[in-house]
C-alpha cells in the first residue's frame, strides 16, 4: 500500500457531482501534481482529503490508516496539512499569531521552536514582518505565510491548493523553489495547480483531472511533453 492513497472517490454538492470516482496515490517523498482547468474538481478533492467535505463513496488512506471519516483536526494531527487556495491568512492576526495558529494542535514546545526557525529560514520575509498584521502583507507574502502556517503543523504530507494563483512570475518562481526545498527536507507534497507547466516541471508524477475524472497519468516530465496535454493546458 502506498503512503497516501485515494480510491474511487465520489463527492457531490447536492445533485451536482464534482468528483466522479477518482483514484490516485502519492508515495513517500514525492511531489505529485494534480492539474486541471477550473471546475475540474481539484479543490473539492483537496477539501475532501482535509475532511472539510465528505465523500459519498470511496476511501482515503494515509500511512496505513483509513482517514475517510476522520474530523479535520484528527487529519491535521495525523500529519496532513493543507494550504488553502487564494491566500487564506487570518487577516486580523499578526504574522507570528498566524504561525502560532498553524501549531494549534501541537503541545511539544521544543519541536515548535525548531519549526519556527525552519519556517523563517524558508521565508525570511516573514521574520522581518513578524509583528505586522497579516492583512498588510503583499499577495506573495500572504501565500508564503499560508505555507509557513501549514508547515507549523509539522506535516508529513503537505497539500498545496494553487500556490501560484494571482502571483507575479517572480514570486511564482520563488514559491516553486521553496516547494522543492520543502520536499528535499522530507515532506511529501500533493500540489494542485492550474499552472500546468510549472506544476509538472517540479513533479515526480502527475494526474490530469477533467470534469471530475482522471484522464491521464504519468511522470511529470512525460506529461509535460505529451501532445494532448500541450494542446489542452500548455498552449500548443
Amino acid at each position, binding site marked *: 500500500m502506498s503512503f497516501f492513497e485515494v480510491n474511487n472517490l465520489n463527492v457531490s454538492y447536492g445533485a451536482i457531482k464534482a468528483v466522479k470516482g477518482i483514484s490516485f496515490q502519492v508515495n513517500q517523498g514525492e511531489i505529485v501534481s494534480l492539474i486541471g482547468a477550473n471546475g475540474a474538481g481539484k479543490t473539492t478533492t483537496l477539501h475532501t482529503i482535509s475532511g472539510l467535505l465528505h465523500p459519498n463513496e470511496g476511501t482515503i488512506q494515509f500511512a496505513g490508516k483509513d482517514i475517510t471519516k476522520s474530523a*479535520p483536526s484528527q487529519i*491535521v494531527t495525523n500529519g496532513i496539512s493543507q*494550504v*488553502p487556495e487564494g491566500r487564506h491568512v*487570518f487577516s486580523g492576526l*499578526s504574522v507570528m499569531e498566524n504561525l502560532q495558529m498553524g501549531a*494549534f*494542535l501541537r503541545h511539544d514546545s521544543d519541536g515548535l521552536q525548531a519549526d519556527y526557525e525552519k519556517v523563517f529560514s524558508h521565508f525570511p520575509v516573514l521574520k522581518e514582518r513578524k*509583528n505586522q*498584521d497579516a492583512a498588510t502583507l503583499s499577495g506573495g507574502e500572504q501565500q508564503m505565510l499560508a505555507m509557513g502556517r501549514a508547515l507549523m503543523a509539522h506535516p508529513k504530507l503537505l497539500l498545496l491548493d494553487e500556490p501560484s494563483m494571482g502571483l507575479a512570475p517572480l514570486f511564482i518562481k520563488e514559491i516553486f523553489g521553496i516547494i522543492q526545498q520543502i520536499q528535499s527536507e522530507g515532506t511529501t507534497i500533493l500540489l494542485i495547480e492550474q499552472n500546468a507547466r510549472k506544476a509538472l516541471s517540479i513533479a515526480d508524477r502527475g494526474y490530469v483531472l477533467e470534469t471530475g475524472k482522471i484522464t491521464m497519468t504519468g511522470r511529470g516530465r512525460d506529461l509535460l511533453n505529451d501532445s494532448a496535454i500541450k494542446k489542452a493546458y500548455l498552449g500548443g
Partner: protein
Amino acid sequence: MKRNLREQFIWLLIAFGGWLIIDLLTFGGVINSFMLTIITMIEINVILAVSLNLILGISGQFSLGHAGFMAIGAYASAIITQSLPTIWGFFLSIIVGIVISSFIALIEGIPTLRLRGDYLAIATLGVSEIIRITINNLEITNGPKGIYNLPQFSNWSLVYIVACIVTLIIVNLIHSKTGRAILAVRDNEIAASAVGVNPTKYKVIAFTVGAAGASLAGSLYANYIQSVTPGDFTFMQSISVLIMVVLGGVGSITGSVLAAVVLGVVDTVLQNYGALRMVLYSLILIIFMLFRPAGFLGNWEFSVKRFFTKQKSSRENKS
C-alpha cells in the same frame, strides 16, 4: 499565552481609581441619586455591550438575541430573590441565571451557528422572542404584569466591580489560545478548519460566554430597578445594545465601554427635550455613522502595555 501580571495590576489600579472618583464625588454631593441611577445603568450597559461584542465583533456572529438572555437572568433573580431575599439568595440567582442562559445558548448555538449573517440574526431574534413570550405566559413569572417590589441588592458599586471583572475576563479570553482560535474562525473559517480548529466549537464558546454576560447584566438590572416585566426585554433592547457595539467599533472592547458611556450621557442630556428626544438621538446616530462608519475606535484597543513601552503596534487604527 500569559498576559503580563504588571499589566493586569495596572488595569485593576485604573478600575479602582474610577471607583474611587465616583465614590468621592457621591460623598461630596456632586453626584446625586438621579445621576447615580444613570451611572448604574451605564455600567449594566457596559456588561451587555462588552459581552455582545465578544459574539459580534470577536467571533463575528450577528446575534440579535441579547435581550432574551438578559431576560433569563433578570427573571431568575426576580423569582429567587422574592422567596429568598438575602444577598446570598441574590448571588445564587445570578448563578442560576447564568447556568440557564448558557444552557440555552449552547442548545441554540450548536444548530444555528452554522448559519451566516442575516440568517443567524433572524434565528437568534426568534429564540429571544420565544423566551420573552414564554415569560409572558408563565404563571411563575406573573405573566405580562411582571414582578414588583424586589429587594434592591445591586448598587452602582457592585455593578461597577462586576462590569470590570466581566471586561477583564473577556479581554483575557480574547488573548488566550481559545480567543485566538475564535478570531481565526472569524477571519477565515476554511483556513481555521485547515489548521485543525473546529469552527462551530469556538463560535459556540463565544456565544455561550456572551449569553452568560447578558444574563449577569439582567440579574443586576432586576435587583437594581426592583421590578421586571416582559416588556423590558423586547428586541428593541437587543437593538440598543447592538447600537452601542456598532457605535463603539465592532471588535473593540474599549469602544464598547466608551459607547455605553457616551450613549448613556447623550440619552440623559436629551431627556430635557421631551418628545424630540428620540428624534435627536436617532439623528446623532445617523450623522455619526455617516462620518465614522467604523465606530468610535474601529478595532483599536487601549493597551496598558503599549502605553508603557510606547511601541507602535500594527494593530493600531489604520484610518
